[in-house]
């Protein structure tokens, strides 16, 4: 595979994008999991599906969309979805979690309509649903890189605020942290990471890469920093093993990456039990 990476550009794109996603998805995922928001990434990925399906449908109808990378509309839909979830959480103050199934079903609903209208998309859509090694373009790689820079800067500069909000939201509010703005920015960032990851792991599996490595990490870590490091290590291991096996077995990388994450989690749980 090493030789092939140097030969084929599409493989370079897939490996580099995969490594970047293996870094940012679990990093952001830790903040999502400890805030008990794991389902939000699932909801947003389904909204991204609506955007992707919409873009693929429009590309059959309008020339402009034929030239547009569907990732943009997918990401745009996820960002709009993230802001709508925030809005709905405020409308249903006593039933905040209602926002998630509302947005999730709206996403699937629109997705289903676009897919039916276009009479199916064949391999294109399957690539978006489960990820693809061969479909990552250089342009996709640049989008992933740009988003990674934004995400890392966001987490680096707002680390202490995000930690406070995750650990004890009431204390954070009392101490004067502007929860509303930080939360809205956090949701948009989550939507961007989902948009960036969907090419490699696929819409249906993107939330797993944000939660499974973190689930394993919090079993081992004593500190928040430790949890962050473990999450990234597990995420990268899953991406590397997942991409290699997807390449040799010629199957969708989303599946192999996520199944590797599940194995990592099982090994960690088993190891912890043996040690106890």
């Amino acid at each position: 595979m090493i030789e092939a990476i140097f030969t084929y550009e599409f493989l370079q794109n897939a490996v580099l994008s995969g490594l970047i996603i293996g870094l940012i998805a679990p990093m952001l995922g830790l903040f999502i999991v400890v805030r008990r928001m794991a389902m939000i990434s699932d909801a947003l990925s389904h909204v991204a599906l609506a955007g992707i399906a919409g873009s693929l449908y429009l590309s059959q109808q309008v020339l402009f969309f034929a030239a547009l990378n569907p990732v943009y509309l997918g990401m745009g839909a996820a960002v709009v979805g993230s802001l709508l979830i925030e809005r709905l959480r405020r409308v249903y103050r006593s039933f905040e979690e209602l926002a998630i199934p509302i947005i999730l079903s709206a996403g699937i609903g629109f997705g289903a309509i676009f897919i039916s209208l276009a009479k199916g998309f064949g391999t294109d859509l399957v690539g978006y649903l489960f990820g693809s090694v061969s479909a990552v373009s250089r342009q996709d790689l640049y989008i992933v890189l740009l988003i990674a820079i934004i995400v890392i800067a966001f987490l680096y500069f707002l680390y202490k605020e995000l930690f406070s909000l995750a650990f004890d939201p009431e204390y954070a509010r009392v101490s004067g942290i502007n929860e509303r703005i930080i939360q809205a920015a956090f949701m948009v960032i989550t939507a961007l990471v989902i948009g960036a990851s969907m090419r490699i792991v696929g819409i249906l599996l993107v939330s797993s890469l944000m939660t499974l490595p973190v689930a394993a990490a919090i079993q081992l870590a004593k500190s928040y920093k430790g949890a962050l490091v473990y999450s990234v290590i597990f995420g990268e291991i899953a991406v590397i093993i997942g991409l290699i096996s997807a390449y040799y077995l010629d199957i969708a990388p989303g599946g192999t990456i996520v199944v590797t994450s599940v194995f990592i989690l099982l090994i960690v749980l088993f190891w912890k039990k043996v040690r106890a």
Partner: protein
Amino acid sequence: MYMTNSIIKLDHITHKYHHSVALSDVSLEVKQGEFWALIGPNGSGKSTLLRIILGLLKPTEGTIQLFGGPIDSFKQQQRIGYVSQKSNAFTTRFPATVLEVVRSGLTSKKGLFKRFTKEDEQRALDALQVVKMADYHGKSIGDLSGGQQQRVFIARALVSKPDLLIMDEPTVGIDRQNVESFYSMLSELNRDYGIAILLVTHEIDLVTQLATHIACLNRTIHFHGVHADYEKMSESELSGWYGHPVRRLHQKETERAR
């Protein structure tokens, strides 16, 4: 802002939830260095009053001043340390060390986009020293007992060097022996560091022995004043506003109970 030693000033605070009155015409002033115990039965409006003071709730009527200025323009949140009820503060398996938790008390003092430094870490260690928990700085917060966790939360409130500590029933879920050492530590903080304390509780025996001032709340303030005047109140008077019979433990009985 003019110079004042007034820290909290509540003027005729009334608060209604829909049509039910939670607080009626509450006026109270907490000054520098005072240790106030705000006592009252369950449902007496203690938590509502606290949420109003913390700026989490706007009262239906009345005004609040913090450090001599109106609450709406108050921007120095680091001058107030807040310790909530342990039971609802955090997820017990949250992956964070004691030091990380205490350091997070400096978040708003540092300001947006600034990272923690070595000095901030030292400040957190100093705050842990005050509550006698410095040896635990590397431990995971979830591995500590309820009493130890509450000390860590006090350290988090102290790390920004506040002038006022506000505590909402901080001893809920802590065993009796640890409650006593916890309260004596508060007394030391008030005496040795001059930190004003406003402690909300429904336990009236232990706290009232330590506080310099006492306010009795049951929707409205039934008594407020210095400890000596509170001691003059008869048990039947106390029971009257508390809503059920109250027996006061006196100093000697409290010591005997220890």
